[in-house]
């Protein structure tokens, strides 16, 4: 009877090693894979209005979704979107769960070690805070020791907390962080200045709030592909698309379409690439 058990164990071990061997085959070229598959899987935000948010029918819409759709159209494939948040988007790309990442991601050297950033960058933003006017914040150092809402996984969290010493209260998504700010659970909400500006200009509920500090730490946002693809055909393709977006003013128009204030970065890039 033990011999039978031993034979079963041997067979199972053989099967597992076979699976392991097959699973470690080399990565095919992503561009080819996408084209032959007939669809491209893009990671987008769904809680960052108006770059990516949910409409009542459950569809994700927004500026970045329009960009992703443009990429799909150029490739002649269907678009499939996967909602991501700051804390899991790079893992998804590295694992290969998504082919492309268009999710308000800041470009910095540490992240370049993990994912492949496409240049020229398609957008840029800086760090600022949304705070009630009554708080009277003037300088970044005013944040010291105060409770400041943030989003989990954002790249500026570490920088802001080490430089200015606030008590960071990080939530999973914007609805929670906004609700906490409204309740007074924190004195300010540190986030990207482009989002803050768009909310202040468009959303009446933020009438008593302001963006008082000097925008710091300008970071370009980048679309990302998996690191091995960066130097390959997929990376080349995305680079051309990005240049074209700046050249053809598509980004500036999309910016206006979604009611976002004109971004000087986009104008500068358009002038650079218009030919």
């Amino acid at each position, binding site marked *: 009877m033990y011999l039978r058990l031993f034979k079963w164990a041997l067979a199972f071990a053989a099967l597992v090693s076979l699976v392991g061997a097959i699973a470690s085959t080399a990565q095919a070229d992503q561009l080819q894979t996408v084209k032959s598959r007939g669809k491209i899987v893009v990671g987008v935000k769904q809680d960052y209005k108006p770059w990516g948010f*949910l409409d*009542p029918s459950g569809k994700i819409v927004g500026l970045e979704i329009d960009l992703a759709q443009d990429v799909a159209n150029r490739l002649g494939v269907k678009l499939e979107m996967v909602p991501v948040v700051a804390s899991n988007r790079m893992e998804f790309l590295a694992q290969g769960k998504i082919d492309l990442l268009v999710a308000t991601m800041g470009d910095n050297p540490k992240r370049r070690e993990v994912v492949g950033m496409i240049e020229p960058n398609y957008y840029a933003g800086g760090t600022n805070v949304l705070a009630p006017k009554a708080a009277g914040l003037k300088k970044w150092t005013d944040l010291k020791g105060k409770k400041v809402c943030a989003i989990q996984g954002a790249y500026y969290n570490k920088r802001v907390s080490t430089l200015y010493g606030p008590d960071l209260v990080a939530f999973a998504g914007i*609805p929670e962080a906004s609700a906490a700010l409204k309740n007074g659970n924190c004195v300010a909400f540190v986030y990207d200045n482009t989002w803050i500006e768009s909310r202040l200009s468009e959303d009446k509920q933020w009438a008593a709030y302001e963006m008082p500090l000097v925008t710091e730490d300008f970071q370009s946002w980048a679309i990302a592909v998996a690191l091995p693809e960066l130097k390959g055909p997929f990376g080349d393709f995305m680079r051309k698309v990005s240049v074209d977006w700046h050249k053809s003013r598509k980004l500036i128009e999309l910016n206006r379409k979604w009611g976002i204030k004109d971004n000087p970065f986009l104008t500068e890039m358009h002038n650079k690439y218009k030919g």
Partner: protein
Amino acid sequence: MATVDRASEGRGGFAVMLPFRLAPRESSVWRFADWISLRAAVVLVAGLWLGLAVDAFAASAAAQPSILSLMVKWSPVLFGGFLFNLLISFLSMAIGTAAGIILGLFQVSLRIPLRRSAWVVTQFFRNAPWLVLLFYCILLIPFELSIFGRTVPFPDWIKAVFGLSLPVMAYVSEFVRGAVQSIPSGQWEAAESLAFSRRKTMTMIILPQCVKRVLPPWMNLYAILTMATPLVSIVGVQEVMTLTRAALGAENRVDLLIPIYLYVLSWFFIYCYPISRYTVRLERHFTVIG
């Protein structure tokens, strides 16, 4: 203070053959509590709808969408998310129960290495927080496996199902172990004297008796699992909580917070409350005196 349980009346036969059951001490109180609770619930729900209707009227005067209309607008999406939660709970329960039964049988096995390792696995997964196990499965299981040239995709929610089935497996294993160990040893001895092999004893004598003992805690575990499914929203799976947060983010109305959370809470309540009441009844039904 023994009374004949009303549920067994009318089954024919001698009264002395009927099972001996103590009347639950507060049976009349439970019924009174139900009576009051039902009416209180009706009053509460009516009041809630009245409040929403008043708010609708006020909102139409203020030219902004009322809370009621917003909740109605988002209900299809949210309800679809809730059904997805239920799907996750069914699958996790199925996988966890199957694995748990096997693990539980290993825990009562006669082979020491099997018993010890099964015990370690059970204790490990019983003592690990569910959220940490979920994070672990989501982040560290690959998103697809290639077997014999065909890729098997593992979408996020499948990984979450595995993550939730691990603690279920551990709990079911404990239930099975407890049930098997609670069978009187007379049963084992009688089976041995009739020359039953261990395997036959288990399958034909012991396990059928265990089913009854395992059923109430197993159903309770299902209720607990269903209430743990919103955890998968923290690891990024699209279910009712993620959709609620997305809806709140799209609407940006602070006064929508309380109604919409209460709304989603009530769905879970309506689903789980009957299950827990039935579990209590089942437990009382199976209680063995002595």
